[in-house]
């Protein structure tokens, strides 16, 4: 019962955030009137941004994995660097 209650709390919070987001971006699909359903290519065509995301999949090197790991490392590196910088600033004696 407690677990169900907790799951419910998580889902309610998620739906609230999702709802706000949906309303902000424009849930009826009119936030970008120049790009309505009729204007956009449907399944089977190349995407306008040049990303053909391989609907069949299973081919080639997993370059996306490498990109993901690099981006994660960048995030971690920036975070650690900022932490080190903050501790350096804190430990620096104030000149009078």
């Amino acid at each position, binding site marked *: 019962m407690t*677990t169900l209650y*907790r*799951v419910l709390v*998580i*889902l309610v919070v*998620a739906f609230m*955030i*999702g709802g706000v*987001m*949906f309303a902000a*971006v*424009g849930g*009826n*699909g*009119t*936030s*970008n009137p120049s*790009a*309505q*359903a009729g204007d*956009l290519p449907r*399944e089977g065509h190349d995407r*306008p*941004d040049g*990303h053909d*995301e*391989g*609907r*069949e*999949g*299973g*081919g*080639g090197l*997993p*370059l*996306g*994995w490498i*990109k*993901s*790991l690099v*981006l*994660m*490392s*960048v*995030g*971690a*590196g*920036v*975070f*650690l660097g900022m932490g080190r910088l903050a501790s350096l600033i804190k430990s620096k004696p104030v000149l009078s």
Partner: protein
Amino acid sequence: MSKTNRTKLLLDLGAFVAFLVVMDPRSSGIAVHEWLAVALGGTIIVHLLLNWNWLVEVTKRFFTKGLNGARTNYILNWLLFIDGIMIMVSGIMISESIVPTLGLMLPQDMAWRSLHDLSANISLLLMGIHITLHWSWIVNSFKRLVNFSRPQPVTPLAMGSKEVKA
């Protein structure tokens, strides 16, 4: 190693691999990308349930002093959660596999696609920070897991007292 910690570690490792697969739809294909993302959403709920006590404790003591590390962690976890929801909502809006399977047709909007790409890239950065913050726990738990599954060498001390005396 406690059973809960082992469950947490194995769940997190599985979720991490699934996250990497989901982040590369070019290799997996769009159907795997979407269905695995839904499964990952369920895994994140279990992840939150397993860490529920920490979540409640930090929420209660958020404004008290001496909680610096946990506070940073807490804020980053919220950002990751919000970003995850952003990915899910925008993903549903541009779905090409799950939503059509349900017999629904949503209007196409480039804004959702841009938001999906942007939030996915942000989630990678946040995930990197999330892993960094828990790195020592991950390494220690993994070491304990490996030691736990490896058969322990039999030493005289580990044997019965009669054998030691002999």
